[in-house]
């Protein structure tokens, strides 16, 4: 535990006595460890080492609403290194000051923590803006010199993360330009990392192509794929719940669990994202990444350690064990929202949205049944569903247990009794609910469902860090625990591709009224198994 201490001080000259002529840098030993850090000194936060963040597509929505506020919040919490630098790259005719102003406004509007002038000053000194196109060689040359200049003036030590907040069609261009201008090659002893956002391809072939392209330029373990769901406290809590407690794990298997429902519902339509969304659809947009990740975390075995490699191994094992139903048509449903009244507002159907082809077969709702063929889960179906314009915005994982095998109470007593369930509410109202039966006060024996509730807002800080804060910090620290690796991405496509293939050749999406909980076909799909969807 105890770290190596400096052995002796007597014979070395003291810097202040040595006068100003001390220049020869003493290089640290390879096993140098910081004596001011100690594993038992748990107050000291993990601060990222000297580094900078380059954001491509810095004028986009994500960048303004999430990334820049997250960078500020990190700085405000004292988690960014002194000299941290932020470089923006976009097609705008801006100077550094204009960029700083844009960041300032974004931070003022969207940051989670209060605005503090001194933190802002610390950040603003390290802001640079590079105007230009992704084709533009001069812009990348400028970026190169900005990076070198920051190393000299801010001490970023050549460590840079490149955040590609750009539409997928620009990925190849940006990555190639980074390679061409030597920005992806780290100088000795430093790192260059790439951060990319979904979609990671649109099927297995394109995902492989994209991975090959990115890995050609960056080392595979220096590529960080953002799945912002994994940065959420509640998702990390799945692991704490399962592996830091004794009472859940014994029942977390086929002997007690009847089935698992994972839902991610949105109440909004596609809004202005028609160009991106049409042809992609809900299954590719959500199931392939978020829902399969949530499923993997719910179903995986205990990892040997809480590190990226062990987590990847366990998640991969689950994804590889996934088996599709033989009759895909009977166990996968897609739908499109139709015009209706939603929450007191009349909304358009998907096919009437601006920029959508009226004959489009893109799914805005998708529900699939998956089996995980291993000893723990054989015979326990996992139902995954996602959709737009559903009843309300909610993401949750519901583990539904089998009915009690025998009840000493007569049937009238337990009439209102449902199956027990553990529900992990990922968002909003983060927390967990346990549902079980309890006697109704009174004379006769009557049993009714009650819930025991744990809400994050009740037991912990009102403002947990935003997912992007955690993820950006992890990128700078090089901690890949919360990032899906390319193997997982490819494995997920292998699960989804046959379903998409089936849909492409059979029928059209079912229509469901906006504001409802999905098409009737989805209810029928569960009814065939003798089950029903929870109303989240």
């Amino acid at each position: 535990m105890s770290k190596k201490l400096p052995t002796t001080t007597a014979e070395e000259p003291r810097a202040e006595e040595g006068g100003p002529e001390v220049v020869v840098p003493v290089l640290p030993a390879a096993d140098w460890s910081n004596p001011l850090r100690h594993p038992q000194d748990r107050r000291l936060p993990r601060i990222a080492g000297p580094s900078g963040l380059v954001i491509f597509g810095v004028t986009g929505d994500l960048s303004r609403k999430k990334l820049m506020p997250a960078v500020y919040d990190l700085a405000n919490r004292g988690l960014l290194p002194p000299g941290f630098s932020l470089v923006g790259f976009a097609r705008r005719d801006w100077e550094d000051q204009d960029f700083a102003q844009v960041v300032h406004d974004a931070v003022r509007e969207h940051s989670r923590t209060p605005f503090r002038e001194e933190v802002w000053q610390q950040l603003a000194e390290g802001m640079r803006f590079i105007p230009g196109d992704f084709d533009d060689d001069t812009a990348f040359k400028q970026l190169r010199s900005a990076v070198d200049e920051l190393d000299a003036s801010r001490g970023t030590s050549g460590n840079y993360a490149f955040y590609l907040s750009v539409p997928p069609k620009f990925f190849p261009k940006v990555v190639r330009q980074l390679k061409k201008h030597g920005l992806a090659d780290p100088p000795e002893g430093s790192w260059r990392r790439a951060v990319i956002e979904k979609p990671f391809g649109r099927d297995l072939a394109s995902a492989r192509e994209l991975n090959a392209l990115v890995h050609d330029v960056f080392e595979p373990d220096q590529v960080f794929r953002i799945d912002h769901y994994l940065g959420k406290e509640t998702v990390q809590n799945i692991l704490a719940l399962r592996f830091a407690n004794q009472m859940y794990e014994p029942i977390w298997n086929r002997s007690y669990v009847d089935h698992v429902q994972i839902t991610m519902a949105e109440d909004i339509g596609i809004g202005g994202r028609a160009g991106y969304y049409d042809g992609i659809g809900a299954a590719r947009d959500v199931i392939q990444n978020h829902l399969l990740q949530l499923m993997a975390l719910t179903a995986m075995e205990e990892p040997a350690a809480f590190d990226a490699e062990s987590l990847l191994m366990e998640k991969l094992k689950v994804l590889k064990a996934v088996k599709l139903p033989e009759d895909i048509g009977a166990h996968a449903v897609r739908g499109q929202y139709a015009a209706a009244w939603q929450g007191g507002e009349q909304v358009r159907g998907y096919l009437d949205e601006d920029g959508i082809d009226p004959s489009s077969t893109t799914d805005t709702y998708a529900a699939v049944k998956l089996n995980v063929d291993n000893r723990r889960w054989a015979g326990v179906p996992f139902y995954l569903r996602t959709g737009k314009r559903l009843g309300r915005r909610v993401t949750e994982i519901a583990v539904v247990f089998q009915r009690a095998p025998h009840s000493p109470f007569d049937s009238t007593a337990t009439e209102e009794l449902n199956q027990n369930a553990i529900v992990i509410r990922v968002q909003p109202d983060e927390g967990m609910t346990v549902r079980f039966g309890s006697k109704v006060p009174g004379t006769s024996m009557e049993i009714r469902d009650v819930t025991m509730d744990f809400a994050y807002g009740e037991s912990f800080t009102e403002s947990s860090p935003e997912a992007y804060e955690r993820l950006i910090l992890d990128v700078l620290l090089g901690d890949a625990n919360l990032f899906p690796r390319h193997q997982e991405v490819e494995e997920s496509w292998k699960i989804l591709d046959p379903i998409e293939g089936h849909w492409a050749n059979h029928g059209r999406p079912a229509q469901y009224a906006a504001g409802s909980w999905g098409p009737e076909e989805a209810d029928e799909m569960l009814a065939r198994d003798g089950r029903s969807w929870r109303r989240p």
Partner: protein
Amino acid sequence: MKIDLTDTTASKINKALVQGRRAIGTPAVGMVLTMVIVTDEENAYDAIKAAEEASHEHPSRTLVVIKRHARTPRDRTNSHLDAEVRVGADAGTGETVILRTYGEVSDHADSVVLPLLLPDAPVVVWWPVDAPDNPAKDPLGALAQRRITDLYAVENPLDVLKARVRSYAPGDTDLAWTRLTPWRSMLAAALDQARVKVTSAAVEAEEENPAAELLARWLEARLDVTVDRVVTAGPVVTAVRLGTANGEIVIDRPEGPLATLSLPGQPSRTLALKVRTTSELIAEELRRLDADEMYAVALRGEGTKEIPTHV
């Protein structure tokens, strides 16, 4: 809502708490700890305010024990307990009970506090002023996993510091130490970057500043060098210098929240190093409730090899 109880007992207070929660419609609570604040009337307001702000991060039941001083012999024999129960919006995110003890019951405040502790949840005692000489041996302190004192609130901090070294028990902590966390994390980050052996060190601070003394002791313990204490006009800690063979690492904060970091061979940079409010300090203290071994090391100011691995 507020419920006032005069000449009361712990069980009546418990009843009032249940009644109060019923009345505001939230009988279930998710409080994670009990915070006992031992203070006098003068400091109670600020301490309660800080605790309520901290309760946004750590929902807690706050028990404020205020010992009233009797002015007449009649008062001294008349022993009684008054309580003010606050639940809901009046009490941050948890609930607050203000206990005023008169006469003899003041010496037995622990008998009032014990029945009011949350079941199974950790207990923290905080003395904003007038901490006992030996916090762990104090009847109220003995109930707690964590005992928070404040060297900034004593007359002769360096003398009291000596006493604290002698009486240290796992679970003790001091806000003077908490105030140092940003300094310590920046120093550690600076050394992460410089990656050289430190051969000398100096801490510059106002006179008799206990935090500066703790910082110096921590550096001595961790770096194995003698740390010079330099007196400046303040406020509080103004600079830390670490001498290395390559040059000096300096964090300089002459005034205000902005500090400058200079590393050998690198341009100097601005750092935000704010003096934090009491509620932020308390919130940091409540984040971990196990013994703070590094505080023990800093108190003693000697080598680190003998840090107990677990207490």
